[in-house]
């Protein structure tokens, strides 16, 4: 992993306070896999004292600038506080402190494996990346949900993923089917035994997915998030209790995660 200042090459505002940020960094792009995240700096050449800490952001995509090597790293970010608001003001030509790629990744699926993606809101980012990487070679489906259509910032881009099966759900029925993203899952998983499920979204959603996959023939991976200090395993600020055999250990989301096996997460913990 590398920590360097890189140029912003594109910024697009999407609906609902979401934005798409693109940076040019061939050295980092060469290392990026679905599930990775970066710590994005608050401001430019010198330390900004306030806000202070870099923000952990999942990689949405990684694309070549030319026809050979990956160079552009894309992020989907939701404006949620002071830090993400500052990031939203970046423009092409600005420099951004980019530290990564960091953390664990979703496992590369075996050729015959059926892959089911379950995402909520901004949690779509790493799943979009999975779809872009593997939809041409794998049998994949995406279940994508949110409260309302404004919580599905990427739905316009989903055709680019090459996914054949995309099931949208909103709680208010403003896009796709009305209901929770998890509602169609039990039936779908029952008719697709042996599938791998990759999930990212609100903890309550992932917990519901874990409850479903526990009762069917499916393996679940989830991408967790938390406030982070350093992103590289030093500050121990982002830990969560993870079940390892018959023990529970405080494990760093930034280093041993963010991607974990679903059954490792102790969903009872609220924070």
């Amino acid at each position: 992993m590398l920590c360097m200042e890189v140029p912003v090459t594109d910024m697009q505002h999407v609906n609902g306070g979401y934005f798409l940020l693109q940076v040019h960094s061939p050295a980092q792009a060469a290392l990026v896999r679905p599930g990775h995240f970066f710590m994005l700096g608050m401001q430019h050449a010198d330390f900004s004292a306030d806000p202070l800490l870099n923000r952990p952001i999942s990689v949405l995509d990684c694309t070549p600038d030319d026809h050979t090597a990956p160079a552009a790293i894309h992020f989907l970010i939701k404006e949620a506080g002071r830090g993400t608001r500052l990031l939203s003001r970046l423009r092409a030509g600005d420099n951004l402190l980019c530290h990564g790629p960091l953390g664990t990744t979703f496992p590369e699926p075996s050729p015959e494996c059926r892959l089911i993606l379950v995402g909520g809101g901004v949690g779509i980012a790493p799943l979009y990346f999975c779809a872009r990487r593997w939809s041409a070679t794998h049998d994949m489906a995406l279940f994508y949900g949110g409260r309302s259509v404004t919580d599905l910032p990427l739905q316009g881009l989903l055709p680019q993923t090459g996914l054949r099966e995309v099931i949208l759900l909103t709680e208010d029925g403003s896009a796709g089917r009305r209901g929770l993203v998890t509602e169609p899952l039990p039936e779908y998983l029952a008719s697709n035994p042996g599938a791998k499920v990759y999930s990212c979204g609100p903890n309550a959603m992932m917990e519901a997915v874990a409850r479903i996959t526990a009762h069917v023939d499916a393996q679940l991976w989830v991408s967790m998030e938390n406030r982070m200090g350093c992103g590289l395993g030093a500050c121990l600020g982002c830990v969560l209790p993870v079940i390892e055999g018959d023990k529970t250990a405080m494990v760093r989301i930034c280093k041993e995660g963010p991607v974990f096996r679903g059954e490792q997460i102790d969903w009872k913990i609220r924070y």
Partner: protein
Amino acid sequence: MDLSVQIGPLRLKNPVMTASGTFGYGLEFADYLDLNALGAIVVKGLSLQPRPGNAPPRIYETAAGMLNAIGLQNVGVEEFVTTKLPALRQYDTPIIANALGNTIEEYTEVCRVLAHTEGIAAVEINVSCPNVKEGGIHFATEPAQTGRVTEAVRRVMGDMPLIVKLSPNVTHIVPFARACRAAGADAVSLVNTFVGIAIDLDTMRPRLSNLTGGLSGPAIKPLAQRLVWEVCRDVDIPVIGIGGIMNATDALEYMALGAVAVQVGTANFIRPDAARQIVAGMADFCAARGITRLENFIGAFLRRETS
């Protein structure tokens, strides 16, 4: 140009150390900077037994700073010596172990192990962690108690340099530094984090599971510098300045106030190579000012004050 400094019996090639708890066990940063470029590495605090630390959430960002309540999560001193330290020995940067305990016996047991371990250059005892109920904080609230633990540790340490890391959460810092000196400490490091609290007005819940946490970052720099200045002025003991150092200017301010060395903490989280950059910035400063020995610059502000 000579950036080297002397901390009691310990000679460092430059005054920039990494603060305990912000640099892991050192190796986490080897991909980002040449560890040999640092004055010293202070590793995460070590207790006799491993500790799980506090429940999340453990950190919360505040204006120009951050609160943390990690709760001294660590692998324990034996595990450190057997699994972490061997890989650190390849570097020619002094490794300073940070030791903690609930009782004087625990401090002395940890320090006894460290004093007999090859590859440890010095021990810094943490008598001041604000985030665990028995984290040694009671040793930090009365000078006599600080003196007692320092004296007990000094006895088991042999010739190994001993640094005492003091809490800023006291009314007067000077008596604590005096107690450390009298008990045989080679240096004091000033300061640990300031105790703070942050709450969520919507839920009326604390931002940290531990309720209170330790404040670090640029927000505390003037507070910490005041304490460093007071001790440097009044007590004849080497001081290591800590608190909100983000760049060479911040570090040099501490040295002008009398600190013989500095520790970089929170900045490591933002730029993993921050400490290396600060060493480079110090060299630039010396070159620009025609300073051939940085040691001669220590206390420049104090001398001006008294002249």
